[in-house]
Every structure is written in C-alpha cells, then in structure tokens.
C-alpha cells in the first residue's frame, strides 16, 4: 500500500509530465 507521501510525490511527477505538453497545446490551440 502506497503511503500518502509517495502518492503526493507521484502526483507532482504526473503534473510535471503534463507541463511538457503545453508547448504542443499552444501550437494547436484555436481558442
């Protein structure tokens, strides 16, 4: 069972991975 701190650190890592998509999002953004 994962501890809360492990999950929190993974969520930070997941957020950081999403940040990497933002360049492409801007290139394709219509709105």
């Amino acid at each position: 069972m994962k501890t809360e701190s492990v999950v929190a650190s993974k969520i930070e890592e997941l957020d950081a991975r999403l940040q990497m998509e933002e360049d492409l999002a801007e290139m394709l953004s219509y709105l």
Partner: protein
Amino acid sequence: MAVNSAAPGLSLREEGARCKASLEAFTENLITKLAVSKPEAEQLCKYDRSRRDGNMYLHFPFCFLDAFPGVPIEAVRIVALSAVLWMSYMRAQDDAVDKNRASAPILLFLRDLYLRESLRLLYTIFVPNSKFWDSYSAYFDEYAYAVLCECRKHSSIESHYPEEEFCAIAKGKAAMAKYPLAALAELSGHHENVALLTESLDCFHVGYQYWDDVVDWKEDLASSKYSLLLTRAFEGMENREGSPDELRERIGHAVYYSGLAEANLEESNRWLERAYDLSIEARCTVWANYLKRLQKQAAVLADDLRLIMTKDTL
C-alpha cells in the same frame, strides 16, 4: 515544411509568419489611428501575441490545399488572414462575455474592428450572394450556440455534463475553423471533399478537447472552468470542502488514480483516429500528418502517465 505537391515551394511556417505580421500591422495601425495610450496598446497587442509563432491556425487554409487544387495563392492568403483576424476577434469576444471581467471600451472597438476587417477581406473574394456565406452563417450560429451553452452551464458552477454536450461544445467553439474549408471549396469549385474535411475538423476538435482537458486540468480548476474531466472528478468526491491546495490535491488524485486521465486520452485517441481516417479519405495529407502527430503525442503521454503511476518508488 513544404505544403504539398499541389503547391510546391510553399512553406507553412513562412505563410504563418506572413499572416501574423499582417495581423500585427493591422493592430498597430489602429493604435495609431485611434490615439490609443501605451497601457491600452499593450492590452490590444495581447490578442495578436496569443498566437505563438508556428501556431497551426496561422497557416490553417494551407493545410488543406491537397483537396482544393487551383486556388490562387493570394486568395488563400486572404482567407488565412481573415481567419486569423477572426481568432483575435474571438479572443476579444471571450473577454467581453466573461462576466468576471469588464472590457474596456477600446477593447470592444478593437473586437468589432477585427471582425469588420475579417469580413471585409472575405467580401473581396466572395460576392454577397455567394453560397460561401450560407456556410459562414451556419458555422457562426454553431459557434455562438456553443459559447453560450458553455457560459450558461459550465462556468463557475458544477453541473451535470453529458458527453454529447461536451462533444457539441468542443465542435461548436471551433466551428468557425470550418469556414476556410468552405472558402477553398467555393474558390476551387471542388466541393466533393468538404463534408469529409469538415467532419474531420469536428472530430479533431473533440479529440483535442479530451486531450487538452487533461493537460490543462489545474488551470481549468484555478479558473473555475468545469470541464468534463473536472466535473467527473468532482462527482467522484465525497468531500468537497477544504483549502484550495487540499482540493487540488484530491482532484489530482481523482484525475490520475481513478482512471479519468487515461479514459480522456483513450477518447482523444479514438476521435483523432476518426479525424485522420476522414482526412486520408479526402486525400489531405498535410492535415492528416498533423492529426497523426497529435495522436502519437497523446499515446506517448498516456504511456508516460501509466509508467509514473506504476513504477516502484524508492
């Protein structure tokens, strides 16, 4: 990148840069003509700058020339500039309809002038009774309906969000991206691929929205924009109380660990695949390549998220 065999030597990036330069020149001219103060001028320029160099919509009509051969390059450039002016209009309109922000009078004038110039350009290539205007009106109505629907139902309130409504809003908000296709069809006399390509665009905008809702969930939460993803995350939460940081953490847990992000990326993949198939059927390879690129990127993202969640942490 060359556009296609139908237009050898054209560069999408150069066409986009040309279009953006014309847009900025238009705004600069207004700033001078209307004696706009420096702080206000800064505000006005933000709409133009919001299109980063390389943004696909700066050279949008050029992506579809495969399907509409024989259109003179100057006419394609007029359609491209008109569409970019429309997008700046739309950004200004978004600010104007946002109840939480009061739009300065100069911004309202700028918004109207963007639309006026966008239309003036189109009237240089289409007579008033051209069938093009029927398509333009239909796309405008679709756009307006979607914006109002999203405003009424999904701004700052949590409401039920049926999937069909999500799709209709995603298609509708970008419905005006379809008028360059109608324009190219009218100019080239080739109408046979319009239905395939407009459907491809609709599918792309739905696929893009599923993907973008994952990428932007924190920003959407911060601005109280209740996307389908966030609505589902809230629906699964028993306790919605707490500080903004606590709420963000719980939403993050729901987005990643309840399979919501994964499901969104799967849906995105499905819609992009459909958009790609339609584009290939219309033999529009430049547009198809864009779609494939996004589809691959979304698949890599889904793999990476899965990997991060399942790997052992020391």
